[in-house]
């Protein structure tokens, strides 16, 4: 899929909001990531000018932290927990199953842009291990055999 990695918008209000506060770069990037789902290059360039921070610093930061992405996410983000509890209770199998079914690797998005697969560390529901989350909806005690069903719900919805 041709992905749109450019997005425009004015982020000066964000910069204004953080103007007099120290240590704001990561906080601003959070707001941008939350808004666009990723950090578009044009926005980074704009931010670099407004904050008087070199673009290289912004990219160093974006590519260092897992939370920030340079590419737009899929419509549904599947986050499979690979925290300790989930790992011990079979989460790796769930990841394998999703990879097989969707034909993507961790951190990738399906060709149709529908699903994006991430692994995360502990969603804080260890009691329900293994856990996966699709756009905020938690699925607990997931069995490998249930994955097909869960995914097909989103395919249908689409």
């Amino acid at each position: 899929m041709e992905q749109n990695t450019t997005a425009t918008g004015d982020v000066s209000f964000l910069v204004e909001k953080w103007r007099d506060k120290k240590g704001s770069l990561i906080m601003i990037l959070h707001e941008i990531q939350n808004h666009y789902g990723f950090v578009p290059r044009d926005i980074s360039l704009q931010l670099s000018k407004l904050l008087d921070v070199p673009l290289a610093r912004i990219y160093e930061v974006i590519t260092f932290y897992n939370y920030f992405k340079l590419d737009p996410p899929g419509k549904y983000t599947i986050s499979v927990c690979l925290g300790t509890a989930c790992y011990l209770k079979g989460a790796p199998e769930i990841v394998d199953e999703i990879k097989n079914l969707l034909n993507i690797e961790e951190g990738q998005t399906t060709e149709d842009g529908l699903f994006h697969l991430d692994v995360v560390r502990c969603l804080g529901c260890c009691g329900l291990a293994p856990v996966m989350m699709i756009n905020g909806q938690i699925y607990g005690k997931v069995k490998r055999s249930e994955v097909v069903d869960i995914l097909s719900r989103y395919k249908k919805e689409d």
Partner: protein
Amino acid sequence: MVKAKINGITVNVPEGTTILEAAEKVQIKIPTLCKHPDLPPTASCGICIVKLVGSNKMLRACCTPIEENMDIITHDPEIVEVRRTVIELILSKHPNECLTCGRNGNCELQKLAEEFGIRTSAFQQFLPDIPPDTSTGTIVLEPRKCISCGRCVTVCQQNQNVWALCFMDRGFGTRISPAGDGVSLSESPCVKCGQCSAHCPTGAIFENDDTAKVWKALQDKDTYCAVQIAPAVRVAIGEAFGYKPGANLTKKIYAALRRMGFNAVFDTNFGADVTIVEEASEFVQRFTETPEKLPLITSCCPSWVDFMEKFHPDMKENFSSCKSPHAIVGVLAKTFFAKKRRIDPANMFVLSVMPCTSKKYEITRSDEMYSSGYQDVDVSITTRELARMIKQAGININDISEEEPDHVLGEYSGAATIFGVTGGVMEAALRTAYDYITGGKLKNVEFENVRGIEGVKEGAIPVNGFTVKVAVAHGLSNVEYVLNKVKEAKRAGKELPYHFIEVMACPGGCIGGGGQPYGITDEIRKKRGEGLYDEDHNCKLRYSHENPFVKKLYEEFLDKPLSEQSHHLLHTTYVKRPEYQK
């Protein structure tokens, strides 16, 4: 003072001295890889570890200050074993390509592997699959060979304030790159100064080797080959042949170049004298006629020009429009000289040997670089490349006898030779400008104020009742201070803090250029600089405008400084350039 023990030997050193430095004082060499004597430690390789008696942790010698009563062991079988493992680990992510590498023979990693006698590697090799970046034509980035020491990033961000290079991603995937996926160096703010290549311990960044083009031209019987060497080359190239830094090999290089087959051997210093005459005239003109166009800023450093065009395009008007010395020699070779000697400039090949990677870019920078009707300078190579060519040509530089340069573009003044060191352009220009304005000679031609390795140097010279205020900055991170002062004064409508500003991109000026022999330190900068100042001191001619051949040039060809002809051939223009093209 701190008193401590290293391998049982007592050391007394000032507070803040690192273990590494303290050990050096007692002739103990702790191996290092990421630490460059010129740069603050990045603490990233882990080779320099030492033991603190009584603790089971090991300390990094390069960045740990020695403390009172520390008892340090620098070498024992366990430490050596750990170091060896770390080297093997580094090599497991590094291609075994020494034979075809830009750093073969002077690579810090190769040397370490040699010293530790690494014969086999226990570990599987994992090589990142990143193609080299040759986009600038000046330096080549080969991230596969990068050991993530961080020196280039420190240099480019801190010393040069360009921020073309940064670390991207993390962990095993950490790599150096311009900001953005698929953004090449030429699309980045890189100003091609090559400081990264001069500081990289490995072949991950090195000068684009253009020597093949030179050999090809030399082989072609129909091509008239001319060559020129920059001031800073003469006092540094010796290091590649075992001379001490600062040793002046000018006349040996002339001889070597002739043996290599060059038909004419010129000196960039001649161009420097012309630059001074033009630039000083420009200064006098602005100083007396158009003071609103002050300060005048020097433009002989292409990295500085590139920096201005990207980051301070509002200063365009303040730049001297004068070309840099090697470009002047280039255009004069293909016009003035060619005409005199009845050589068809179409068959001429002009090489410039520079301390600089950026000159490789400058020779095609704009239309004005073709003002002879041809590309004025065909190829520019660095000191390091020339040293290799001399070796390839089988020339014994130690024993070769000295020779003189060719007329007409060879003779130079002492003012020209100090172009190669920070403050030199300013000093040379002031000598001439003073004469132009006052019609008299300066009492003391040597301006101590603008000499030395301090990042920003300021001075004031009384001229006909006025005070000419000057500033000299070198290392691009130092220009902001100077420019801010000017911009603030202008904004506030106050008196200018400076009338004349010299900037050189490389710390120390060209003697510390990105294409100079490896291992630069402030100590070496000083020695190379002294080499040039000595030459100036011993020159009979101390003023550019008194160079008889320069005078002749104007009489026969250019008319006078800033004439139409000289504008056409010797001057250039500036444009605003985007920091990022992507």
